[in-house]
């Protein structure tokens, strides 16, 4: 466990917490961007360069901007008077605390069975590309179809409805 890991995980968790707790929604998205950046740095720390840069491109570059657009289009930056949490927030908090307790218990009690390879994986982008068009070509095609469907579907869903003919 290195110091870098502790700093990066503290940054990521703090970003996630702030994204879920802040009142102003634009601030929430900025905190979310910090969490995504921390996750990308954690990926780089795990020697997964390709996934780290894909994380930066897709999440910080696309998803965060998309969320900002959605917030501004729905005028969500105004804080509601009734508060930012729903009426049943105690139940939600209890459920997520229970989930964390179960996950943490499972991780801590299976520590001896977890794999622990210390050798650094020798993987470059060329190998990733070759396995993307080799062994994983069918999932790649399915993801391509999914992205096309999502693109068309999002445009159709968000399209302005025509006025009903009277």
């Amino acid at each position, binding site marked *: 466990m290195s110091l870098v890991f502790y700093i990066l995980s503290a940054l990521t968790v703090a970003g996630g917490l702030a994204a879920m707790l802040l009142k102003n929604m634009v601030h929430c998205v900025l905190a979310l961007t910090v969490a995504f950046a921390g996750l990308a740095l954690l990926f780089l720390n*795990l*020697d997964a360069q390709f996934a780290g840069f894909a994380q930066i491109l897709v999440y910080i570059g696309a998803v965060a901007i998309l969320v900002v657009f959605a917030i501004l289009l729905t005028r969500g930056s105004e804080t509601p008077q009734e508060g930012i949490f729903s009426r049943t927030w105690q139940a939600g908090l209890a459920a*997520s605390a229970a989930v964390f307790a179960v996950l943490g218990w499972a991780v801590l009690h299976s520590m001896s069975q977890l794999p*622990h390879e210390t050798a650094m994986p020798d993987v470059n982008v060329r190998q*990733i590309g070759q396995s993307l068009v080799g062994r994983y070509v069918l999932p790649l095609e399915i993801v391509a179809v999914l992205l096309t469907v999502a693109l068309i579907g999002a445009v159709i869903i968000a399209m302005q409805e025509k006025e009903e003919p009277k």
Partner: protein
Amino acid sequence: MTPLTGYLLVAALLFSIGLAGALTRRNAILVLIGIELMLNAANLNLIAFWRYGPHPEALTGMMFAIFSIAVAAAEAAVGLGLVIQIHRHAKTTDLDQMNRMKG
């Protein structure tokens, strides 16, 4: 504590934060943000198992994480489109006020 345990614990914490946000926030967009955080925590698990598990040269965990990132991007686009359309229809993104399915 092995490094893998640390990463798994951070991922579990992030997943729980995302779940708490998705379950407690009123605004539909912030619920989507919580779901994104949960997906990212799962990706961190996949990458950590790829790094510390046997046979990293098979690239299984890495490929899983990359496809998961692509699926999450598609999910975010469709989800935010749905939120914008609901806002246009119901004039709110407050989930506590959306209590009927009748158009």
